[in-house]
């Protein structure tokens, strides 16, 4: 076991895939955010130009 391996094994934030838990959690969060903003953008597209009193498309 090299010193690098030993350091990896000691770091509680590094998992069996060799990736940092925090980084992976952040990617999962970003994936989730895609659905969040997807829903908002979908709402915008569905309502675009349909407002009765707001400015219409030009």
């Amino acid at each position: 076991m090299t010193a690098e391996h030993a350091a990896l094994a000691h770091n509680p934030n590094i998992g069996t895939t060799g990736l940092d838990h925090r980084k992976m959690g952040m990617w999962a969060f970003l994936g989730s955010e895609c659905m969040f903003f997807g829903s908002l953008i979908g709402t915008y597209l569905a309502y675009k130009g349909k407002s009765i009193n707001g400015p219409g498309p030009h």
Partner: protein
Amino acid sequence: MATHAAFMPGTKVSAGSVIWSWITTVDHKRVGILYGVSAFFFFFVGGIEALIMRLQLAHPDGTLVTAQRFNELFTMHGTTMVFLAIMPMSAAFFNFMIPLMIGARDVAFPRLNALSYWIFFSGALLLHLSFLAGAVPDGGWFGYANLTSHQFSPTHSIDFWMLGLQVLGISSLMAGFNFIVTIINMRAPGMTLMRMPLFVWMSFVVQFLVVLAFPAITVALILLMFDRFFGTLFYAPAGGGDPLLWQHLFWIFGHPEVYILILPAMGIVSEVLPTFSRKPLFGAPVVIYSGIMIGFFGFGVWSHHMFSVGMGPVADSAFSIATMLIAVPTGVKILNWIGTLWGGRIQFRTPLYFSLGFIAMFTLGGLSGVMHASPPVDLQQTDSYFIVAHFHYVLFGGSIFGLFSGVYYWWPKIFGKLLDERLGKLHFWLMMIGFNVTFFPMHFLGLIGMPRRIYTYAPDLGWNFWNLVATIGAFIIALSLLVFLGNVVKTTRSGAPAPADPWDGRTLEWTIPSPPPVYNFAVEPLVHDRDDFWVQKYGDGHGIPPRKPSPPAHVDTSSIHMPPPSYWPILLAGAFLFMVSGALVSIYQVVLGGFLTLFCMARFMLEYHHQTDVGPAAGGYH
């Protein structure tokens, strides 16, 4: 102290420090027990609501509750059972079992895990504070616009529901990220993805459904909040808005949600059947693939909840075909479960009873589900008791039976005592009979025209007999749950201690003592097979001999570092609840709560920022 079973209460300490140790715990096993106890509590609350509704409907022209009270009862029954009973019960098993089954010492983010629980608790509290405020949500569990608008719901009732669901969603999302990372990144050496136990696999799919489905309802609820608090017109046709937007956003979340409710139960059944048939799961990779397929298809079928809206022939056909397709992976799983039993040396223990009940009842519910997939048929059945019968067959006959199978299966591992078999089987038969007596007649009621959500009915409609039968059945279910409670009390008082491996199990959780020590595994396991413990004991039957158990390792367990307890999760959740409930009281409470939340969040984040070693040597946990 890192001693055996130190996570359990009752080790010669004062009541105050026991309570303190539970509210500051970050141990995944304790958090799992907290989830499980809360889930059971709310399961009983939702059950009492159901009993009151059944009493009201037992006779025509019932006068037990008013129409308003009845609306509140079915809304809270649905919301409670979905979000506060089945989901946290699944979360209890995720928390307790996933780290044990993948050979890990804890989840990836232990404090975030505790925070998930306390946020869940805050959301449940907020939802039920509505009873104290006298403004109980009454818009149905899917709260269709524009019933939820100010015009039709002027009191705070919908606000409680909307904010409560939003808070519960945050809790589920945090748990979802935590378990995705845990399952990908915390597996023991040798445990490849295809060697993961089926329960872990199904939970893995569920976490992806959670993190991809909940944002949709978050947006739907944010728009609703703007409509109700700030006078926007997102769901108001008078202002150019469209109530259908709510239905689409809700069901984009809502359909994956039903798979969030059923997949954990499928995972439990896929663990229980091989154990009690004493042979590997038939076609395990195919069961995994069909679980993934269900997850994918689950996002493409939401509009089958909306056939009566009139979306047009193209949309109706597309969603109808997708819905029929999703029955294929489900059918594959049912075939595989039955194939697992085929030729096995079956041991009829209580967990197997509940799993067999799951297969039978879930298949019936699945069949009526495929019937609704056809829009012309659905138009006849929608909003009738036929639908009520269908979803109780999949959620009660499916999820609840599967979860009870897990309760009986893992109880000895969690609490170190075996539940009584005789009472367990009595519980099963009462529940099975009561369930069918309650919900099977609802198919008939629906087909002879009884709509859902009516608080009473006239005596000459021909619905009297089956309604009375359903009410009697509901009380048989209640009786079966009392038998379960009796079993728990009896077992806790005088049950025999369970050995580490009471069922001759197949997966890693049975290799460690019951209940497990705080650090779970003294030595990190090395995994060679999906049913690793079984192969270790008996070989795989195809040439691989049993492995000689490695000599008990003399590990200095006091050197194992576990995360220390923290009180910031509960404080952060409390500050958050204070902020959210301020929306119903005053803007100053929202602002003050916001600052408190930010403060707690900062302390939560920076708690161990400067510390590199948080073990007992650093004065960590006790």
